[in-house]
């Protein structure tokens, strides 16, 4: 009924003729070509991106089912034995019951379990902060583009000033001001990131605003809220999705850095960054595993998200459509 409802589909159905032929060949006969299927086929064109997606899915699985997968609950003090502290990877626990595949830290905690729980916290913080920033940035960016004038210049001026400072500096200041805690770090990440979305969505919305369907909606005298969120927003989503995937990786890296500096999460909720910081002192005496393995987990998380984000950018960018 309303024209914008099917425009996302329409926008992905303008490929070059060659691509259409290509697709017809790759889609088995009898299955209908949907925008989503197209996206999946395009995405699968890069093997590296698929690898990234599989890796990310595995990490997500670990994050969600950490309590079931971990050999021990790393924060249940009753399960820890100080005699098992700082064991090398592959060593057996004192009572011979289980093997610490990735070694133990200074409190006799199984690193593998600690990493599973750490991924859970890192990923959770990253995703929540990104979604929050997405919602905030999108609303402000849409408002800026739609209303223009003073609203636009105030919002964008704030975003510009903020973007001219490195994210880590702003996050540090906010944490210095707010103090520690999981909620505080989410607020800090949110405040750091909203400006990226606001900018992205504003530039997309400025293009969309001048199109006929918005004019039609305006002529129907629909309320501004409805035009913004039902008509303008869905059509500005593709570039935002790309920015959001990459920003999740940034958020995780930033959170890890802040936790490493001792300003992020409290010790009771150790993310990967805090685990790495814990092992830092032992690194100098050659006990590499306390820092090294959480670092590898962090690395795999960030790289897999970046691989997926890169490919999404290519797939969703109409200018690059082959």
């Amino acid at each position: 009924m309303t024209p914008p409802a099917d425009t996302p589909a329409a926008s992905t159905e303008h490929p070059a003729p060659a691509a259409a032929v290509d697709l017809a060949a790759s889609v088995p006969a009898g299955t209908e070509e949907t925008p989503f299927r197209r996206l999946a086929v395009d995405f699968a064109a890069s093997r590296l991106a698929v690898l990234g997606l599989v890796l990310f899915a595995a990490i997500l699985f670990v994050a969600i089912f950490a309590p079931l997968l971990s050999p021990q609950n790393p924060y249940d003090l009753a399960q820890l034995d100080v005699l098992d502290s700082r064991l090398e990877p592959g060593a057996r626990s004192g009572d011979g019951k289980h093997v610490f595949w990735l070694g133990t830290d200074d409190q006799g905690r199984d690193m593998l379990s600690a990493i599973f729980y750490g991924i859970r916290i890192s990923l959770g913080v990253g995703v929540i902060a990104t979604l929050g920033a997405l919602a905030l940035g999108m609303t402000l960016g849409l408002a800026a583009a739609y209303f223009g004038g003073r609203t636009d210049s105030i919002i964008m001026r704030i975003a510009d000033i903020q973007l001219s400072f490195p994210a880590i500096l702003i996050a540090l200041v906010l944490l210095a001001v707010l103090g520690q805690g999981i909620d505080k770090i989410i607020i800090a990440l949110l405040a750091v990131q909203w400006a990226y979305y606001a900018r992205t969505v504003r530039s997309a919305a400025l293009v969309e605003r001048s199109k006929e369907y918005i004019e039609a909606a305006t002529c129907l005298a629909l309320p501004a809220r409805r035009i913004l969120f039902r008509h303008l927003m869905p059509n500005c989503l593709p570039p935002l999705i790309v920015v959001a995937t990459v920003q999740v990786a940034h958020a995780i890296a930033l959170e890890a850095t802040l936790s490493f500096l001792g300003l992020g999460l409290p010790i009771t909720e150790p993310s990967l960054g805090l685990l790495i910081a814990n092992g830092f002192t032992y690194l100098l005496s050659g006990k590499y595993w306390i820092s090294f393995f959480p670092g590898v987990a962090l690395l795999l998380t960030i790289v897999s998200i970046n691989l997926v984000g890169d490919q999404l950018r290519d797939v969703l960018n109409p200018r690059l459509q082959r």
Partner: protein
Amino acid sequence: MQSIVVLFVMSALVFVGVYAIGNPVDILINPQADQEDIERAIKGLGLDKPLWEQYLVFLQRAAAGDLGKSFAFNVPAIQLILERMPATLELATAAMVIAIVLGIPLGLLAGLKPESLGARTIMAGSILGFSLPTFWVGLMLIMVFSVHLGWLPSNGRGPTTDLLGIPVSFLSWAGLRHLVLPATNLALFNLALVIRLTRSGTREAMLQDYVKYARAKGLSDARVIGVHVLKNISIPIVTVTGLQFGALIAFAIVTESIFAWPGMGKLLIDSINVLDRPVIVAYLLIIVTLFIAINLAVDLLYSVLDPRVRLADAKG
């Protein structure tokens, strides 16, 4: 004008915010001190006055170049930061030099033969440079070069020598050895950035008519690339690396903490941990000023490099 507003807003926000975190008295004063001592200390630190009055006093003093005394060291905050500043600037400059000296040749290589194995390796490396968190790379550098190989020291600045009254590390062998790891660590992100900029600039420039013309004139490859291409791609590189210098100083906070480099970033982290408010506020004001100065310098440099900007300015 706008930059002055930014300075004011930052200072007020930070001042109010930092005030709200907690009571530095609990941390700074000996818990065994009696009530009288505590009150005397509170008076001495100016903490008994209402918040707005403290801010006004702070502004008055700031205008006179005095940003308050550090609670922890009892010396002027600004002096404390200025003492640490050369170390940070040296680290950031060294990182910038590494990024440019390595990044431009690698980027040229990748841009001239984009399909070659070498180019692909360089680009894959630059993706890693973007996605690896700085602190993690720092730890790995320490693990490999200090702990396992034992080639380079992992912390501190080493002996410094005075150059025009400023203590620097890079003039002595021991100091240089201390500088290598932190500077490399800090340089990685910018190295990746310079490689990418140079590569895309080179690929674009090689298709331009002036390159074909220079070739047609019979100029050697070295001259075409070294003079004609390099000159044209230098504009975006200068702009971006110039603006990145501020980011380097900010990111030095992380590197300095890992390598125990006695710069102002480490001072900031230490100050946040003991709630040494005047130092935090002074650090931020100094860094905001520094950022504004860097932006200005890049603008000026830009007009020197790009005749189009220079001529447009002269006309308008």
